[in-house]
């Protein structure tokens, strides 16, 4: 219980600090952020955009790992864990897309410009949208778990093409692309220590929040399945 309160305080602090701390030319007080050329006031959204994008990757990775474990052990609990992770991944993916689009509007001039990163996150949305479409179309529980696990593994082997290869060979605006003059993420050298601190606190806070949500999510799925089975047996007995 105590860690939930602590998490609440941490995320509240990160949100307030991320939004309210001023950006100044020469930071002197502990709460002032440095001025980053090219980013300016837009830099603040980094505290929310990067953690959501990071959790998208973590959630989909976990979804794939539990899909693989389901195929190995045929344990429906693993399927519930994979499904719950995919659901959360979808939520964070949408959040990352929206925060990215808002950032793009102010940094690059328009909400959507088919930058390689935007293309790849669009493909991620499509993949997991297709996964949910597949899941909802199958009635049988075992079959649904097997087929969605297979699809999620096939989809996952194409994900490296999107996340790591495409943005690097195509010209783009996002940091880390082929013609990027900064050559690398901004975190390393342009942030000062207090900005880094809040950035990593935000990463940690959101990650803990994700694991908490994921635990609640998969437990509720498992309990729901159990309840349905318990309710089904007596009715079937009466019918027969």
């Amino acid at each position, binding site marked *: 219980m105590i860690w939930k309160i602590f998490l609440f305080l941490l995320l509240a602090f990160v949100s307030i600090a991320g939004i309210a701390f001023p950006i100044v030319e020469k930071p002197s007080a502990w709460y002032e952020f440095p001025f980053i050329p090219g980013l300016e006031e837009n830099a603040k959204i980094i505290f929310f955009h990067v953690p959501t994008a990071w959790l998208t990757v973590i959630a989909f990775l976990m979804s794939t790992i539990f899909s693989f474990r389901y195929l190995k052990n045929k344990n429906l609990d693993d399927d519930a864990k994979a499904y719950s992770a995919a659901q959360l991944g979808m939520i964070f993916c949408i959040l990352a897309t929206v925060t990215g689009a808002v950032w793009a509007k102010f940094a690059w001039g328009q909400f959507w410009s088919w930058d390689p990163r935007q*293309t790849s996150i669009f493909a991620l949305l499509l993949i997991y949208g*297709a996964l949910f479409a597949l899941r909802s179309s199958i009635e049988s529980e075992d079959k649904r778990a*097997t*087929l969605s696990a297979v699809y999620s593994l*096939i*989809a996952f082997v194409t994900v490296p*093409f999107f996340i790591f290869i*495409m943005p690097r060979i195509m010209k783009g605006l996002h940091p880390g692309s082929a013609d990027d003059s900064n050559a690398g993420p901004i975190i390393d050298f342009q942030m000062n220590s207090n900005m880094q601190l809040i950035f990593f606190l935000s990463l940690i806070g959101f990650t803990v929040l994700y694991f908490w949500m994921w635990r609640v999510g998969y437990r509720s799925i498992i309990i729901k399945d159990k309840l349905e089975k318990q309710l089904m047996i007596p009715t079937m007995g009466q019918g027969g």
Partner: protein
Amino acid sequence: MFIIVAISVILFSIGNETITESLTAGLFWVVIFFTAMSGLARAFVSEEERGTTLTLQLIASPTTVFSGKLFFNLILVFCMNLVIALLYSALFEKFVVQNFPLFLLTFILGNIGLAVASTIIAAIIAKAGAKGTLYPVLSFPILLPLILTCVQLTLFSFDGTSFEEAQFELAIVVGYDVIMITASYMLFDFIWKD
């Protein structure tokens, strides 16, 4: 038949306007994608409909079944895309290939990737109860990296780019094919057995 309809729709909609090379390359792969979507979905569905799946499960190993289906789809894809390529070179002014070996290699590698990915998706669809609309939804994200790279390579072959410059894109397509074949053979057992 679908090929002729699709190409004539494109020709009518273009009208008298001149289109660029990049647009031609894109339209070429768009037609290939949708032809594959309409043609290749049937591979496993027909087995389920006629009820021959159980017999196949008894007499053949999953690998053999998958190889057979894959081979059939490969032949189908190659025939269809050959027709599309011939029609395009006859009907589109800008469809002029400068670097023919590069185009041929792209064409072959792209077709292999297309056939493998659509075969494994077709197997999933057949087990899921043959929903026709689900097939393109499931295939599109899987095929997207292949198609984007193939469009780029086709454009290179129009421009007459040499093999050295197109090396990276070729490596991506080869990698995609190898990964797809490996993953499909490993995962097909799970789809087929249940």
